[in-house]
């Protein structure tokens, strides 16, 4: 049994397979496959794993290789066209050669990759995302939000090394109007497949503190125009579209808008432009405020001026009316006064005339009265004179009779008077002290004076006693009062 069997070495088998395969597969073939892993080695060679899935199940799997030189060329071409680096887990159209190596076994040697197919795939993904968003009514959701009057508080999704971030900050932080923004950075990867998850996670965090923010801004830039197909990812786009705050994007994509940019509240081509947009929003707030201040100032000034003018004209009118009224009254007064004057004159004239008439009448009456009185007086005087003459005649008779009797009366009077005088002479003679002394009486004198009740006498005083024939000096021995 052993003689009949033919034994091959492993190398012979391998070589045989290689020969067979080389004969059978002499050309290169376009193969559509999903590149599950790229496996780029430090040597520069890649050993990707290729798959085909049906209903999520792997139905074919093969190893592949890309030599360093091929990889460099393929990748450059790919990025140039697709604006994406070669990505794992994407379906690619590969130009392959089926190779078998004695030691490495069977593999597909990739000599080229069609970038246009990849591009088409991306477009398809983009289209699918758009359709799905539309179907789920998410397309305009973010754009329907009310934009804050002042987008002041900004949740920034970016990378702190991003040039886009610094461009954006420069615009909003150094504006010449002194507008103040508040920014809080939520660090995220901004390109490539990792960006999808990274941005989604940060959106979730922002939603947690959304009360602190007015808008979300995603800015990117300076990293080259590759790796942006992540912004076509349905899940990321859904997260943006349904975010409760307006999401603004400035991710710097000049050619083909990504879905994220399309559904964002607003998209700017560059972070700088996005910054300018926010500044513009501030202007739209600031300008009416400034205008308000101007309008109010002008209006108030006008209003006050008008009020002032109307007051002035009212005062003027009042003055005029008053002056007019005073004039009218004055005229009236002047007229009245002249009429009073003429009336007074007339009255005075009349009175004068009446006085003059009265005067004349008085004069005449007086004259008459005077004449009457004169006559009366004259007659009275005549009567009086006659009476007096009569009286005088009567009196004269009486006087004559008295005169006739007078000498007899006088003679009797003289006789009576002489008798009385003779009696008086007799009395006086009897009263003379000498006559008294002759009849035996004496007079005592003290210090030349007769004694009276108040003459003070004491025993020893010397008294002079006059008699009709002597003067006796004696001394008082005793005094007996009666």
């Amino acid at each position, binding site marked *: 049994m052993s003689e009949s069997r033919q034994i091959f070495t492993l190398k012979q088998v391998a070589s045989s397979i290689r020969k067979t395969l080389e004969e059978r597969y002499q050309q290169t073939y376009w193969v559509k496959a999903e590149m599950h892993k790229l496996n780029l080695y430090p040597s520069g060679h890649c050993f990707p794993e290729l798959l085909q899935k049906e209903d999520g199940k792997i139905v074919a799997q093969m190893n592949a290789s890309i030599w360093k030189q091929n990889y460099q060329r393929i990748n450059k071409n790919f990025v140039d066209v697709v604006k994406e680096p070669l990505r794992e887990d994407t379906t690619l159209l590969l130009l392959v050669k089926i190779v078998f190596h004695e030691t490495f076994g069977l593999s597909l040697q990739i000599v080229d990759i069609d970038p246009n197919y990849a591009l088409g795939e991306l477009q398809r993904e983009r289209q699918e995302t758009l359709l799905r968003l539309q179907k789920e009514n998410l397309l305009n959701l973010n754009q329907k939000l009310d934009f*804050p*009057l*002042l987008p*002041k*508080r900004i949740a920034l999704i970016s990378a702190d090394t991003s040039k886009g971030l610094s461009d954006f900050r420069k615009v909003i932080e150094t504006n010449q*109007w*002194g*507008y*103040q*923004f*508040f920014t*809080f950075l939520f660090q995220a990867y901004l390109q490539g497949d990792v960006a999808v998850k990274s941005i989604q996670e940060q959106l979730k*965090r922002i939603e*947690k*503190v959304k009360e*602190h923010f007015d808008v979300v801004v995603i800015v990117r830039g300076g990293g080259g125009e590759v790796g942006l197909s992540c912004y076509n990812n349905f899940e990321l786009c859904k997260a943006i579209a349904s975010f409760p705050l307006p999401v603004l994007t400035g991710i710097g994509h000049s050619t083909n808008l990504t879905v994220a940019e399309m559904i964002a509240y607003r998209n700017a081509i560059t972070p700088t432009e996005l910054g300018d947009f926010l500044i513009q929003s*501030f202007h739209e*707030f*600031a300008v*009416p*405020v400034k*205008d*308000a*201040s101007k*309008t*109010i100032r002008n*209006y*108030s000034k006008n*209003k*006050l001026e008008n*009020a002032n003018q109307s007051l002035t004209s009212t005062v003027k009118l009042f003055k005029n009316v008053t002056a007019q009224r005073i004039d009218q009254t004055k005229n009236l007064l002047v007229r009245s006064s002249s009429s009073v004057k003429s009336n007074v004159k007339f009255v005075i004239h009349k009175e004068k005339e009446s006085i003059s008439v009265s005067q004349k009448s008085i004069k005449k009456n007086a004259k008459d009265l005077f004449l009457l009185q004169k006559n009366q007086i004259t007659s009275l005087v005549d009567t009086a004179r006659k009476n007096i003459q009569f009286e005088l005649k009567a009196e004269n008779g009486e006087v004559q009779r008295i005169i006739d009797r007078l000498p007899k009366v006088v003679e009797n009077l003289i006789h009576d008077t002489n008798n009385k005088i003779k009696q008086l002479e007799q009395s006086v003679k009897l009263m003379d002290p000498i006559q008294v002394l002759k009849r035996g009486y004496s007079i005592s004198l003290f210090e030349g004076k007769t004694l009276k009740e108040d003459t003070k006498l004491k025993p020893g005083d010397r008294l002079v006693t006059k008699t009709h024939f002597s003067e006796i000096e004696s001394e008082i021995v005793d005094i007996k009062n009666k």
Partner: protein
Amino acid sequence: MAEEINYTEAFQELQTIVADIEEGEISVDELSIKVKRAAELIKVCKNKLTSTEEDVNQILKDLED
């Protein structure tokens, strides 16, 4: 101003005052009150443009909750 007024309300109230004033619906008596109010509102609005009061620490604390 005693009450804390939201800048959106301040802005709207200011616009209303301006409209009223432009339409001449304010008497001289009311004018000084309105002008005073407008000045306050303008101040609130201007302050909003040039200041921030957001507290980073509070945000960080809220993020951790």
